[in-house]
């Protein structure tokens, strides 16, 4: 091999190898026979990257505390996680890896919930925490039908958020339009809104399904949707899209002089992505917040302090609910005196009023999502204070 060819080959090799190592990967304690593995799958890159990172961090805080208190059934827990990049194929590969590595459960995924739910059902294997945002991902045939048997979701629930937003719109809007993504996440929100409307015999005037770019959250071309909303005569619109697209939408709508009231979703105020991008255009934007987060208990305040000290960022609800999920897993395993999936499942279905950071958590055979619309409060963004404040 001559010198130039060698240099070229080396350059290509270095670049490809550098590229292959570009994705953030797992962390965790070293492997060992006396440890229990908790797998984690979360999109820590892309439009919902902050959500995925919060899920990982919140779970890690819980695992640290569990280990400091003696572990689960006397064994230390090692938490290994990887970024699924919102890619179902990657997610399924990770699921199989954790399964073959002997994990006792998998936390997630907030991005690829339908994949992890399907695999959990197929393999009779428990998944916990941010399983997407519950809703249609866990209740694939609707809330009145049995949920996925091994999915125990402590996440923000699209049914609940859609429900409270739908109710608020019923009370305050003449005509409501909904823009949503076509995944189980967007459809879950739509389901919650529609259920509320149909219960009163009213209908939403426009239902637009928009495939979003989940790598960037930026879907160029929402201008046409603004025209459709105006043409439909809607005075309110729920934008069940990424925070980036919500910011883009409200900015463009306000620039065009649109005066309709705009609602968000459970991600809108979960962190500052939306409000930072939308700026002043976010003023008056309507969303919902977990009521107990507005008046946090001491346990929640303590968690937030620990989290901030450890990760140098503020905790989000996704961190908090993921912390709860790991703590419930410990409780369930110790009551079952086993980490066998079937025994864990049976014990999960008996969890009653577990003291979570948001309040009591309960699972039953029919109840596999812990959050309901009654746990939420409508909040409105105030540009002066840059805060989400309870309405009124």
């Amino acid at each position, binding site marked *: 091999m001559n010198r130039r060819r060698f*240099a070229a080959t080396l350059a290509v090799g270095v670049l490809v190898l550098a590229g292959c190592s570009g994705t953030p990967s797992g962390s965790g304690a070293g492997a060992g026979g006396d440890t229990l593995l908790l797998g984690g799958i979360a999109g820590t890159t892309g439009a919902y990257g902050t959500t995925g990172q919060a899920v990982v961090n919140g779970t890690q805080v819980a695992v640290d505390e569990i280990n400091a208190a003696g572990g689960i059934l006397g064994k230390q827990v090692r938490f290994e996680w990887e970024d699924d990049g919102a890619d179902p194929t990657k997610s399924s590969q990770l699921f199989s890896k954790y399964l073959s590595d002997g994990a006792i459960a998998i936390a997630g995924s907030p991005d690829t919930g339908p994949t992890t739910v399907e695999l959990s059902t197929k393999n009779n294997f428990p998944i916990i925490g941010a399983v997407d945002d519950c809703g249609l991902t866990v209740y694939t045939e609707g809330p009145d039908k049995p949920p996925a048997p091994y999915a125990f979701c402590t996440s923000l629930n699209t049914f609940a958020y859609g429900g409270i937003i739908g109710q608020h719109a019923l009370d305050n809007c003449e005509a409501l339009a909904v823009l949503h993504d076509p995944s189980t996440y967007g459809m879950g929100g739509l389901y919650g809104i529609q259920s509320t409307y149909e219960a009163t015999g009213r209908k939403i005037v426009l239902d637009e399904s928009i495939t979003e770019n989940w790598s960037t959250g930026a879907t160029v071309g929402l201008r046409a949707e603004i025209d459709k909303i105006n043409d439909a005569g809607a005075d309110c619109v729920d934008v069940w899209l990424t925070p980036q697209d919500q910011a883009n939408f409200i900015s463009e709508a306000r620039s065009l002089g649109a005066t309709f009231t705009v609602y968000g979703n459970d991600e809108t105020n979960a962190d500052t992505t939306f409000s930072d991008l939308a700026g002043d255009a976010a003023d008056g934007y309507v969303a919902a917040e977990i009521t107990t987060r507005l008046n946090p208990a001491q346990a929640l305040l303590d968690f937030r302090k620990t989290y901030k000290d450890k990760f140098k960022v503020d905790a989000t609800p996704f961190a908090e609910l993921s912390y709860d999920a790991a703590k419930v897993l410990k409780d369930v395993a110790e009551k079952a005196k086993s980490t066998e999936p079937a025994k864990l499942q049976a014990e999960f279905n008996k969890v009653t009023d577990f003291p979570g950071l948001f309040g009591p958590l309960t699972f039953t055979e029919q109840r596999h999502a812990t959050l309901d619309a009654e746990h939420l409060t409508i909040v409105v963004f105030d540009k002066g204070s840059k805060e989400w404040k309870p309405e009124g």
Partner: protein
Amino acid sequence: MLQVLLSGLAAGAIYGLVAMAFAVVYYVTRVINFATGQLLMIGIMVAAAVSAAGLPEPLALAGGVLVATLGGVLIYGVAVRPVLAADRFSFAWLVSTLGMAIVIQSIAAIIWGPTSRAFPALLHRDIMFFPGGASLSWQQIAAIIVATGAAVAYEVVRRRTLFGKVGMAISSDPEMARVVGANVTAHSVIAFALGGLLAGIAGMLVGPITYANPYLGETYGITGFVALMIGGVENPIAAVGGGFVLGILSVAANTYIDSQASDWFPFVIIVVVLLVSPRGLFASGLRWRRSRGGLATAGTNS
């Protein structure tokens, strides 16, 4: 209808600029720089970071474009020149430019994190209304003007200057051009710099809409490449035309078929174009016109 046309032109202008960034590099070097989308992204990220640091917007924009331009040169020096020097006819550049794309994206994600960051609104909040209620922001109007102007300026330089004609000679036969004294390396460096410049400018034009995110490169790299294939890879001005066609048809599909249609519709277009006119819509069009004794100029590569 007018709104569809205007919105399509605005979206197409960005696709066209990215397609042109691909095309100017390919025109001289016969290399497709698959990191072109990442140059757009890095320009946006740098401009957003400079602006967030409190520096004036013009400085932020200039910084973004400059970094994208230098990025183009860096890609040539690190990922293209060594592999072409080893074997001019190999396709190793395909892997090396793809590798650079992943490296740039990963570095951006490490530096700035995965979250979208604010980008200066520039002219995006200033709206111009047209008859019938149609409207565009001045940012979008600027995009259309810049894309058109860039295509025309490039064509003038290509056809009317010695520099452009040497570029044409290199694109036809680099070995022969080198023998007669053309500096192939210098032209290649300039082509990659120009590609970075165009991608950077596209970034400044679209940043107020997309915000700053390290994963933008994939999206615009793909749409720019599709526009390139639609317009034709042989001529940068055809690539811009491909961008406009793609933009208008995508917005029309979104409006008249389904709000999800723009995801799949561009690929239907490209299949049809490749079946009907494998060299691209406008490249073949010029050939047809040439065969009828029309527009084409002897000796050009259009």
